[in-house]
């Protein structure tokens, strides 16, 4: 079973956001970058599926700058077999990125393409379904349970207040939600081996953006409110404020 996992290098979720002088981008100074947390679930699922199948390759792919090699090495240390860096700047919307990924995936033998459900930087949640559409493949997004056997796939995905079951025959695309599995940590041995695993670099040229960034700004700070009191005796005062000031009751 050959699996391609598409990943992204993103700022850590604990960062405080500062805006760069151009007023359009994140000030990257002092920011720690990590493998997108949802992509960890995708990598883990790929490794598990390969282990169950007892054969096949896991290829990890990203579109990004040279800095993204570090992220690819992280996934190789977890156990992926090889990595591909598509050198380019991800698009503002998802489509440009999806086009480059789809092009690279089309050239490779692959039964399943895995993604994290969204990148936690631009929160677009677009690329997996776009890649599926561009390749004419079936797709399940926001997947919390996955079963693959005999070339058939069944995925359980989260919808509001219920789950949907999505069934299709491979090849196909799946985007992982938290809860799908428990991602493994890279072992010391894995980290050593990762240095020797193949990492291919491909120049993909200009990535088209259908949207342009006009402005990036911080939301208005909430001004801290009032402590209405201590203990259960403060409840009537709270309710009075919720009714009369906030008008939410």
């Amino acid at each position: 079973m050959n699996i391609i996992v598409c990943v992204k290098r993103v700022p850590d979720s604990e960062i405080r956001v500062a805006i760069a002088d151009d007023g359009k981008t994140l000030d990257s100074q002092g920011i720690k970058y990590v493998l997108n947390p949802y992509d960890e679930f995708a990598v883990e699922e790929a490794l598990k599926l390969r282990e169950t199948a007892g054969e096949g390759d896991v290829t990890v792919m990203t579109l990004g700058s040279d800095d993204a090699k570090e992220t690819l090495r992280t996934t190789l240390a977890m156990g992926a077999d090889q990595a591909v860096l598509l050198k380019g700047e991800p698009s503002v919307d998802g489509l440009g990125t999806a086009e480059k990924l789809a092009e690279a995936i089309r050239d490779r033998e692959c039964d399943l393409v895995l993604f994290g459900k969204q990148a936690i930087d631009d929160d677009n949640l677009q690329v997996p379904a776009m890649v599926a559409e561009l390749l004419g493949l079936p797709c399940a997004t926001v997947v919390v349970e996955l079963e693959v056997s005999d070339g058939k796939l069944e995925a359980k995905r989260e919808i509001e207040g219920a789950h949907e079951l999505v069934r299709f025959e491979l090849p196909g695309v799946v985007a992982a939600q938290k809860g799908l599995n428990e991602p493994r940590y890279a072992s010391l041995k894995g980290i050593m081996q990762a240095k020797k695993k193949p990492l291919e670099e491909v120049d993909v040229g200009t990535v088209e953006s259908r949207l342009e960034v006009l402005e990036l700004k911080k939301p208005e700070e909430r001004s801290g409110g009032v402590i209405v009191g201590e203990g259960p005796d403060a409840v009537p005062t709270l309710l009075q404020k919720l009714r009369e000031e906030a008008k939410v009751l």
Partner: protein
Amino acid sequence: MSVLVIAEQRNGALREAALEAMTAGRELADALDGECTAVLLGGPGIEDEAEALGRHGADNVLVASDDALAGYAPESYTEVLGRLIEERGPKAVVFAASALGKDLAPRVAARIGAGLASDVTELGSQDGGLYAVRPVYAGKALLRVGFKDSPALASIRPRAYSAQENPRDGQVEKVDVELDPERKRSEVRVEEGEKKGRPDVAEAEAIVSGGRGMQGPENWNLLEDLAEALGPKTGLGASRAVVDAGWRPHSEQVGQTGKVVSPPLYIAIGISGAIQHLAGMRTARCIVAINKDPEAPIFKVADYGIVGDAFEIVPRLSEEIKKLRSEG
């Protein structure tokens, strides 16, 4: 036609998110001095829902009804919408950023080669172009984007717009449904017998959210009682710590690796307020915090706080709200 709104239904009934998208679409159409047309995809009989779309601002309602469209079918929905958009040439296409919309909108965008802005909180027109404002980094920043080309596709974050009645003709037009059997590659069905009583946090009118201060999953009945007192549109939320500990399902997690929410009322109980949690709920209209630590960061964003033991405060709060409700 200037704006096309994709009206989402489940089991043949319009969803609240569809009416919110309708409101966003109507506002944009007015700004463009154009028409707003809703599209309703569903099984036979779905045209009964067209009336509500007209009432919420649809000049026209295009109805595509077919057994194959009764439930969500990604490839078929994409095929029907792709064709409609190409035929009708709208300036903008508005989806709801619901579970369905987030799956469908990117497929449609890829199909027609258009730019899509996800999870939009403001959609408008300025200097002859269309723009969208959307939270990024889980709401730690707001991104304003401009569309380079038409049609502009946008999915509207639940609760960013509140559904407004704005009666228009809602003229129904049936459209032919022709599906290429080759395209359909997946079967999708909603899992039965699993309907939770409470709405999803992303769509709830009020959220009662618990953190580690609740001390264990067995104490969640206190939060359920409070949600019950507040009413059926109240959802239950949780902090990442609580979800990671396995006390609550991930579908309830609020924050950067969970859901970003904007309800009118958010009650944080025993949640200290880690930065990634605050990012996910800071756009709630009114935030109430109950925590025993007066220094907890949650109090810095809360409109109202009570310092003290949640196990004493929450039952009292539920009781007083029930009293209020019974007094009407």
